[in-house]
């Protein structure tokens, strides 16, 4: 049997539609748990296949675009794939089926309710992430950005108790306020200046925007893209940890936050243009703000004993890495930032998966209860160690490459202090991520139990897959190194 030729625009359409198809099948087969979840995962696998095909096509220099319809005069909803978007789609597409498998295990193991509603919104959120990744103009991106916020709200408030409703308020409040107050304003500002919102390699603002205003416009985007969790707009991330761990894992370690930093990077490259930023110095302030977030979040992470909270602040810190790379605006910094999207996704999702596995197997969420647990859950803790090493940036884990490139990029931009910032941050990562591993394996446990008690297999397989990916990414990193049109090397 031969498969029909998958043209690039079909790939785009597929990536957008498949999650929606999954959402529909979930609702239709809601009563039959196993059928419903199998269809979800199967659709996810097909999506991953599409995402890989698209990425390979784009990496080989190909083009892909799809225009849908005219939204308003001068605005079309269209999709134009470029290397960064293909990478983000790849990340979301490949991690989605893995995360769905894990979620099935978690939701059943932790006896959560309302599975159908959960998987429905999960799929819609992936659809929104795809829309963001593949968007061809800022308006399309903004629309899907908002869809992502609203489709993840039911996931954050899934448990329905007072705590999750309150957290949902913080989540929605920060994300919607920042996007409507600042991002929308910035977007319309670009529209007013450039007459158009299409993403153009090299940016659309050169020769059109007086350099004195550029930092202000950049600030509107940096703080308007609340999903990038730049301080002081970061509070939604720890608040969202009240959600079930699969939500934290996929959405807040991968899709939602990645959508945020992806948008920042995309705006920097295709709206402002790296040359424009370098020549006007409009992003230097952002380098410092990102550095502050980087360090401050790590300091807070050290103080947290709740594992998910610690991981949340670690995420905030790691996101700042990407924003930092974007702000440095040199070609290596930008490439490092893009690579970090991939590396961090693989590493962080492993860590969150492990946190969820520990909760399902032993009902512990505080680190103080996890002493010696590594001996009872060796696979989980070993994979946790691998994910942690990637985040710390230690070879042979993938995170080493992105951190290295960010340091080189900082030197390129003449910001040697940043190299020290990154090194200090790595040391802090070493502490707050290493501590759980060390104590898990070597500390005496409080309950003196030493029997093997791992998490269910449906959770272990994804954990091992993503941990393995973190290792493989070190060796195959060059496959994912992107070259951007319009960014001078």
């Amino acid at each position, binding site marked *: 049997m031969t498969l029909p030729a998958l043209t690039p625009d079909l790939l785009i359409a597929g990536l957008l539609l498949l999650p929606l198809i999954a959402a529909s099948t979930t609702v239709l087969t809601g009563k039959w748990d196993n059928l419903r979840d199998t269809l979800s995962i199967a659709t996810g696998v097909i999506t991953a296949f599409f995402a890989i095909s698209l990425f390979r096509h784009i990496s080989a220099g190909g083009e892909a675009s799809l225009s849908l319809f005219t939204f*308003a005069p001068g605005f079309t909803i269209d999709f134009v794939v470029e290397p960064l978007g293909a990478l983000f789609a790849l990340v979301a597409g490949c991690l989605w089926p893995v995360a769905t498998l894990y979620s099935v295990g978690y939701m059943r193991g932790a006896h959560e309710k309302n599975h159908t509603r959960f998987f429905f919104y999960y799929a819609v959120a992936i659809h929104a992430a795809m829309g963001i990744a593949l968007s061809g103009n800022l308006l399309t991106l903004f*629309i899907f950005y908002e869809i992502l916020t609203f489709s993840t709200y039911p996931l954050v408030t899934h448990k*329905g108790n007072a705590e999750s409703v309150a957290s949902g308020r913080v989540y929605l409040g920060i994300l*919607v306020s920042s996007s*409507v107050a600042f991002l929308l*304003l910035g977007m319309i500002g670009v529209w007013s200046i450039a007459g158009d919102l299409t993403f153009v390699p090299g940016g659309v603002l050169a020769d059109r925007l007086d350099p004195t205003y550029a930092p202000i416009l950049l600030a509107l985007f940096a703080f308007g893209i609340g999903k990038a969790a730049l301080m002081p707009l970061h509070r939604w991330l720890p608040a969202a940890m009240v959600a079930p761990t699969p939500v934290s894992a996929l959405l807040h370690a991968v899709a939602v936050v990645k959508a945020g930093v992806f948008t920042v990077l995309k705006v920097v490259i295709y709206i402002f243009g790296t040359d424009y930023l370098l020549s006007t110095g409009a992003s230097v302030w952002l380098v410092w703000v990102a550095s502050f977030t980087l360090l401050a979040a790590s300091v807070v992470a050290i103080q947290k004993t709740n594992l998910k909270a610690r991981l949340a602040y670690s995420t905030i810190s790691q996101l700042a890495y990407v924003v930092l790379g974007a702000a440095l605006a040199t070609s290596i910094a930008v490439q490092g930032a893009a690579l970090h999207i991939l590396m961090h996704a693989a590493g962080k999702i492993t860590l969150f998966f492990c946190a969820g596995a520990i909760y399902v197997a032993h009902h512990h969420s505080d680190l103080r209860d996890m002493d010696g647990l590594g001996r009872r859950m060796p696979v989980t803790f070993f994979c946790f160690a691998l994910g942690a090493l990637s985040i710390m940036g230690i070879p042979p884990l993938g995170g080493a490459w992105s951190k290295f490139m960010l340091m080189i990029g900082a030197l390129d931009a003449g910001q040697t202090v940043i190299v020290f910032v990154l090194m200090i941050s790595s040391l802090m990562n070493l502490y707050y991520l290493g501590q759980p591993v060390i104590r898990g394996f070597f500390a005496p446990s409080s309950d003196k139990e030493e029997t093997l008690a791992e998490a269910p297999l449906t959770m272990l397989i994804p954990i091992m897959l993503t941990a393995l990916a973190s290792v493989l990414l070190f060796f195959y990193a060059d496959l994912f190194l992107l070259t951007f049109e319009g960014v001078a090397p």
Partner: protein
Amino acid sequence: MLAHAPILQIIIPLLAAPLIVLLRQRDLAWIVAVAATALSFLFSARLFLQVAATGEPIIYEIGAWPAPIGIIYVIDSANALVMPLIAGIAFIVTLVGRGMIEAEVDARDHTLFFSAWMLTIAGMLGQVATNDAFNIFVFLEISSLSAYALVAMGAGRDARALPAAFNYLILGTIGATFYVIGIGLLYMLTGTLNIGDLAARLPEIGDTHTGFAALAFIALGLFLKIALFPLHFWLTPAYSFAPSAVSALMAATATKVSVYVLIRLLFGVFGLNFPGMDEVGTLLLWLGVAGAFAGTLAAIWETDLKRLFAQSSIAQLGYMAIGMGLMSSAGLAATFIHLVNHALMKGAIFLALGGLAMHVGRVTMSSIAGVGRQAPLTVAALLFGGLALIGVPLTAGFISKLYLIRAQLDQQLYVIALLTVISSVLALVYVWKIIEAAYMQDRPKDAVVIRETPAMWVGAWILVIATIYFGVQAESLVDAAFRAAETMLGDAQ
């Protein structure tokens, strides 16, 4: 028949009013009302399509007396856009409002209710269609007087409707009288009452105290009618204590018509270059911003949902005022876009509230706790209406915001743009309070159990679908709005 469409769309509801009284039968009254509004809608839609296709205004001379001797109706791109909106919403509310009216208005008063209903609709359509300044006043008063009576009909449910209606009467009459003083001064100056004629004569002889005074009186009178801050205090009590169907109709149409009249007089008669227009623009801009904040902040503290959305209307009218105050074609287009979109959004919201009111009586945060599960479609309509108010993409509210802020940034009014987005973010607070109450809370055991019927949500959903349609396929509306703006501004841009 079609050649007389401009006048028929007004005459039919106007004649339906006494007909309903003569028929004396409740069911027939409703049928006649539905039929009359349906015909009005068909005629006005037909006129819109005709004007959109040819780009030429349709001129209808009443009694075959030509202007400026006779009164003429001119259907151009501007009012061709507004009339089907008013007629369409009137039709939908009449169609689905029957249940609400039966629940809230005493059965013996139904024929009189529908009669006043027809009069207010006829009055609104008349204000929009006519090209004679005094004719506007006549229809304004027809519409307003019947509106005062309709608001007072809410006394069956809540006696506060009576002082609310009285207050509305006093302030409304003052506004209309100011308007008529202004028209008198214009007549004194130019000798004509025909809008086209006034526009032609004013540039040469307008630069006098009389002209300036006329502008001031007309502007002030109409500011009161559009509930511009700080002349907005009549609106909240009137909309909250009126019967639900009346609130739905008026929230969606009455103030929009007054916005149209203000645009027609300010831009179509006086024009951008008239001395004093700059001051009027500044007032509109800053009072609009003040209204946007006053309305939104007041809404945040409200627990009665009808009052809440009435306060929200003040904020939305503030946005329309800002659009007018920009004194540009882009700003005016943004006002027209928001005029249409707000009518759809608010209509949907008030119809949904009316649907809930049929069962819970007074719609408050506590009376709708947990209602999301018992009346899912009705509350979903409320949710979408709320999302549209915030300006979430894929709803019409987003389009309004897009063009309004663009028009502000084009004029480098950065502070105003920032204030506009901040007030729209604040709207999230009150919309989400309602969503949480409806979906996240449990329904108390002693609360009324609602069995959802289509009557509760059909009308609201028609308007919600329209809101989403114009949020996704905005091209036709945006083009029509820009055409309307350019028609109004004419040569002086």
